């Protein structure tokens, strides 16, 4: 009878092994699936020669050190990718069309007016190009604001997704804990939880501490518990700052809501915040300053000259009293809009309409250092802004490429350890199939032996 048991146990173990191998093969395309190996052990002690083989467990093949590195690299890659994506639009604002061209055309129109101060057509051209320049500033400002608004909206979305995943991580931790206490297999649950952890790490930099009871503690910035060891979640909040309108991320710490935006050193959240508070803020500030400088420089000259009706004191642009919001609010002054005669080309009210001296002063502004604190011409200042923003965007794109390469490398390493190889699984299935066939042969031999024995009694 013991021989039959040996065969039965062997068949059972072979079935188990084949099952594990086929599970791996069928999950070769399943996201987050970790390969498993069947662990078999001999049954029964000698002297009877043992009782065959038994299935002990199926073990997930993972390297915890690599898993932790995956989290860090995914955070870096998520940060760089989000930053690069958020800055793509601002880069285009400073492209080869738009603001720079309008600035050139405005200055060219003033040059034309200075040669023909009494003629109507050059004056109309100055007004229309000044209006176009103001609108180009408005459009550039609107696009920067829109980009910032997109970032703020994405931050809220990201935090919502993070919270969903944290909730899943906590729930799965509880389920894993229960299953393992009950002695049930929890590999699938662990795979799912690990996948959620990896996804969250792409969004916000987290660290994890695995507990013996199957629970997992998730920390933000190494100090704020997002998932605690008892499976409770401390969800993040994202809401606009009343003063700036910028979305801030908060969490509860010791019963108090704390701004944890800066804790996110990596992940999409960090990338979005870096783009918003870095290049997008720089772009807005520089645009505002340029619009403010240009408007005030031209206003100062225009308002002191005389127009064709000997009027004086009219500005060319309406602009706020401070640089803040100047690019958004700059417009052609209502005092000259639609009234080309109001352009002050003359310095002498008795020398109208031929006096072009104030127009020459306006023309000279194109070559004068009126921007960037009186150190750069308007054209140079615009080129400087473009270079500054372009460099920030280029850096972001390079960071994205580098971190993406690093991510591929570490995930390849992880895959080389935990990923499924169909070749291996097929070989394993063949191996367990052979083991099963061997055990079946044992049963057949046992059956023959029993039959022989029974025949002797007849």
């Amino acid at each position: 009878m013991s021989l039959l048991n040996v065969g039965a146990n062997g068949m059972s173990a072979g079935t188990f092994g084949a099952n594990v191998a086929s599970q791996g093969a069928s999950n070769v395309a399943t996201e987050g699936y970790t390969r498993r190996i069947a662990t078999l052990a001999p049954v029964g002690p000698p002297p009877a020669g043992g009782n065959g083989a038994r299935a002990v467990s199926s073990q997930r093949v993972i390297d915890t050190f690599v898993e932790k590195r995956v989290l860090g690299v995914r955070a870096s890659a998520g940060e760089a990718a989000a930053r690069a994506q958020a800055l793509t639009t601002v880069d285009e604002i400073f492209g080869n069309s738009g603001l720079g061209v309008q600035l050139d055309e405005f200055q060219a129109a003033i040059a034309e007016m200075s040669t023909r101060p009494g003629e109507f057509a050059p004056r109309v051209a100055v007004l229309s190009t000044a209006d176009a320049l103001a609108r180009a500033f408005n459009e550039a400002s609107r696009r920067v604001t829109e980009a910032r608004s997109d970032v703020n909206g994405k931050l809220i979305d990201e935090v919502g997704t993070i919270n969903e995943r944290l909730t899943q991580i906590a729930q799965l931790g509880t389920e894993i804990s229960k299953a393992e206490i009950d002695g049930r297999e929890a590999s699938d649950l662990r795979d799912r939880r690990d996948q959620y952890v990896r996804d969250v790490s792409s969004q916000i930099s987290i660290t994890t501490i695995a507990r013996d009871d199957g629970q997992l503690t998730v920390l933000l910035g190494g100090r704020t518990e997002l998932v605690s060891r008892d499976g409770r979640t401390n969800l993040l909040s994202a809401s606009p700052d009343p003063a700036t309108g910028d979305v801030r991320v908060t969490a509860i710490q010791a019963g108090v809501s704390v701004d944890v935006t800066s804790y996110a050193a990596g992940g999409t959240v960090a990338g979005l915040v870096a783009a918003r508070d870095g290049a997008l803020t720089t772009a807005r500030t520089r645009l505002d300053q340029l619009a403010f400088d240009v408007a005030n420089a031209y206003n100062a000259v225009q308002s002191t000259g005389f127009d064709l009706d000997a009027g004086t004191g009219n500005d060319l642009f309406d602009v706020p009293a401070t640089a803040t919001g100047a690019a958004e609010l700059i417009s052609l002054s209502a005092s000259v809009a639609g009234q080309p005669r109001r352009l002050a080309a003359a310095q002498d009210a008795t020398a109208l309409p031929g006096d072009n001296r104030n127009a020459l002063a306006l023309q000279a502004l194109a070559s004068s250092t009126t921007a960037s604190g009186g150190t750069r011409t308007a054209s140079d200042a615009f080129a400087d802004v473009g270079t500054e923003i372009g460099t920030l965007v280029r850096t972001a794109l390079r960071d994205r490429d580098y971190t993406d390469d690093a991510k591929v490398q570490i995930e390849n390493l992880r895959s080389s350890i935990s990923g499924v190889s169909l070749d291996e699984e097929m070989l394993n299935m063949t191996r367990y199939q052979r083991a099963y066939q061997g055990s079946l042969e044992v049963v057949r031999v046992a059956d023959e032996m029993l039959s022989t024995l029974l025949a002797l009694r007849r």
Partner: protein
Amino acid sequence: MRVSDGMVQDLGQRAIANARARNATATSIASSGMRVQKPSDDPVAFAIGRRDTAREQVAVASARTSEYAMSVSIGADQALAEAGDALARARELAVQMASGTYTANERTFAASAARELRLEVLNAANREVDGTYVFGGYRDGAPPFDATTGAYSGDGLVKQVEVAPFLRLPVSVSGATTFGAGTGTDVLATLEALATALDANDPTAVQALLPDIDTSAQQINGARVDLGGQIRGFDVTLATAELVKDRSAASRAQQLEADPYRAYSDLVEAERALQAAVGVASRLPFPGLVGGGR
């Protein structure tokens, strides 16, 4: 190193994605002809290109201003040439009529000729070029010399234009100085005096006017010398502006535009890389290219 199926699939996916991105970039450059379309493509080249564009625009405006100023100065010079001719004829007339051999009738006839010459000079002094009275200074919206009295209503100044950054040059010459309105010899008054002396049949008075006629001619000729210098100056600034424009355009093109042969070559290379990536991916053991399996 152990190789999982997921690694192989990811490799295929990534190769195709990279090849597609490279292909898109090469297509964009080849179709637009622009190597730098936005600052991040090459921040330094963008800045240089932007400055080149601005410099080119300034050069275009400078060239236009120089052309305009040159046409005004040439118009003024032509006017002064006509005035100079009239003064030369007036001098001949004065020399001739200062002789005692002419009768009163002949001098009366010569007086009307002198008035014609004054009118020619007046017309020259009130010359309008391209909508502006070139000897009016900044008050160039109306004829600067009164047709009857010859009184000057210009401001006596010389209008300037900016022909290059920080370089302003005069256009025309002072009507007051050239025609002696308030300073020097009054050309129109001299010619009127000549006509009056001829009407009065006074050869002595006619003789006495010869120095004034000569001074008037010198004033006109001196102004023409100034105008000649101006015209040469505008010629130089025009040529310089054209040169700056061409060089700025060339520099901008060098910074921002793509070399068409290289762009096409890159495109062909990128297309081949994409074909190769797709070809390799199609040989992968998985029929689908979806990821996972790690």
